[in-house]
């Protein structure tokens, strides 16, 4: 194992132009991801938490070069991903995989399960057809689609939502990825099925711990908590807090994290009705025209004058990172 982190994300930005202009460049940008930094070791697992418009999915897609970055650097296993040609990215694709929210949309509806998974081997390896089908069977077993023979010849629409998500996971781990990003992996599933998939993701993580880094993206902190060690809270394209997930839940530092944690419905009436609540005001502002200073200040109960002036930098407090003037001297 190398001495460097498996994944390094440095000053990554993704701006989308808005408004159309016939001539010249558009003057306005949506800063979907604005200057994100983090690194992840082998065996690391990071949750990215945020609500709609936080840029969490965009960030994942930029890291995987599914979107072209505006600026910044991403190193996977010391390879500078943003400097690769599209062809080189394609060759590297099996090593960095993503699991999406809607499994139906990410599976080819006209192909059988064995072809969907087998295709990965066909494209990226030169193993024989016999070996491919062995590997596919092995993968189906790994993701709990047993007996595999029952699923090989089925089409995606013949499976339930949970089973489809299992197929997606099987395909993602087919060629031992180094980086696995799951974007809202259970949101589209039935409640009773969610637990199964969470369990599976955990199993996979345990099994590949020595070679993989995990990123889970969700609006649901509880889901992140059940899979990840660390978490990053994003608000309007910016990281507002990063630390161990337990600490964020127990003692969130950033007022937005506090608001988010106290908003989560708890399926326990005793806790739900007796916990302290952060008063919530307003809604997430538009990314096209974000507020001046700290993006959160219009909703923040502790807002000070300087919050309205300048975006607070991400500073270290007790081994945690937070972007809030409450914690700077």
């Amino acid at each position, binding site marked *: 194992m190398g001495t460097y982190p498996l994944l390094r994300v440095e000053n990554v930005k993704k701006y989308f132009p808005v408004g159309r202009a016939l001539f010249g460049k558009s003057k306005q940008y949506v800063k979907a991801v604005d200057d994100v930094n983090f690194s992840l070791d082998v065996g690391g697992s990071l949750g990215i938490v945020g*609500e*709609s418009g936080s840029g969490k999915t965009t960030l994942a897609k930029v890291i995987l070069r599914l979107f072209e970055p505006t600026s910044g650097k991403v190193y996977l296993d010391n390879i500078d991903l943003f400097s690769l040609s599209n062809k080189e990215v394609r060759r590297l694709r099996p090593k960095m995989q993503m699991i999406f929210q809607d499994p139906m949309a990410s599976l080819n509806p006209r192909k059988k399960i064995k072809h969907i998974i087998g295709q990965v081997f066909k494209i990226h390896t030169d193993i024989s057809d016999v070996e491919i089908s062995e590997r596919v069977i092995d993968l189906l077993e790994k993701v709990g689609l047993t007996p595999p023979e029952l699923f090989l010849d089925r089409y995606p629409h013949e499976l*339930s*939502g*949970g*089973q489809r998500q299992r197929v997606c996971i099987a395909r993602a781990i087919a060629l031992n990825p180094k980086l696995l990003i799951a974007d809202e992996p259970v949101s589209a599933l*039935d*409640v*009773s*099925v*969610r*637990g*199964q*998939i*969470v*369990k599976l993701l*955990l199993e996979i993580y345990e099994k590949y711990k020595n070679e993989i880094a995990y990123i889970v993206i969700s*609006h*649901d*902190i*509880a*889901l992140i*908590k*059940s*899979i990840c060690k660390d978490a990053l809270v994003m608000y309007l394209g910016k990281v507002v807090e990063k630390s161990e997930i337990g600490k964020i*839940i127990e003692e969130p530092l950033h007022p937005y994290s506090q*608001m*988010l*944690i*106290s*908003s*989560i*419905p*708890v*399926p*326990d*009436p*005793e*806790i*739900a*009705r007796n916990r302290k*609540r952060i008063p*919530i005001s307003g*809604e*997430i502002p538009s990314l096209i025209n974000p507020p001046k200073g700290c993006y959160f200040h219009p909703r923040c109960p502790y807002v000070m004058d300087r919050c309205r002036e300048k975006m607070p930098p991400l500073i270290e407090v007790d081994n945690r990172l937070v972007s809030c003037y409450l914690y700077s001297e």
Partner: protein
Amino acid sequence: MNDSKILEISNLTTYYYTSRGIVRAVDGVTLYVKRGESIAIVGESGSGKSTLAFTIMRLLPDNAQIVNGNIWLYPEKIDLVRLSNDEMRKVRGRRIGMIFQDPMTFLNPVMKVGDQIAEAIMYHHGYTKTEARRKAVELLEKLRIPDAANVASRYPHQLSGGMKQRVIIAIAVSCNPELLIADEPTTALDVTVQAEVLELLRRLIQELGMSLILVTHDLGIVAEICNRVTIMYAGKIVEIGETYSLYRNPKHPYTIGLLNAVPTIHKSSSEVGGIKGNPPDLVNPPTGCRFNPRCPYAFERCIREEPPLIEVNNDRAVACWLVV
């Protein structure tokens, strides 16, 4: 809270007639709602919880039909199932209001939101358009919407998701109904907005003394605002109970599984369980107890015979052979 009922549902059965066959979406549901109480109907997609809500409002699609049962509205004990369309129209909006899931699609895109709120007031209270519009603005103010007059003159697409959902709530409560039915009222919203909307709902039903039927898949939001919980599975009620006791001591294996299936911030990941298998196809539901193929405790009787919903103590009823 007095103990008089506001709504009583007896043996209600609603089927959908589809090309694949008859879908038994709601199959013999019996339930009552007390005045001033908030009751939750919890289930997954396909459990029949939304169909139940739409059956009470008699707003079913053309291919669905109420096959059997009664829905009595108190104090007169009128049976909504047997009302004429015109009579039912007078119940909708005025005596039972409904809140819908998706604020993006449930508001008319080409009508100002103030007019959409004013409509019911005009029809049920005979107000003129100007009076009703004024009432609509007052209502928005009551929902603590800043700059209510301005909001009333906007179109839905000019409002945020949370604001639109508040407009939907305003429409539902515009005529002071005694009963409010909320179908997944916060599912389409962000977490922080959801918390706000829930808070608003809680305050509203308290201030206006309304009863609430909350239809949801989210046990979290139920714990926040409901007194009683009904768990539905595959068109049937499997357990009903008072919220605190049901969460602390769930009796039906499905309820137990459901409570464990969702990760929460207060649980360690090893506690997350889940239920094996998938919800059944309601065209061909399993024989006996509909949960038996997924139940870890299923035995021979469960496959053979359907368990009735039996009261186990004062405030709890369970449909399971284990409990009998």
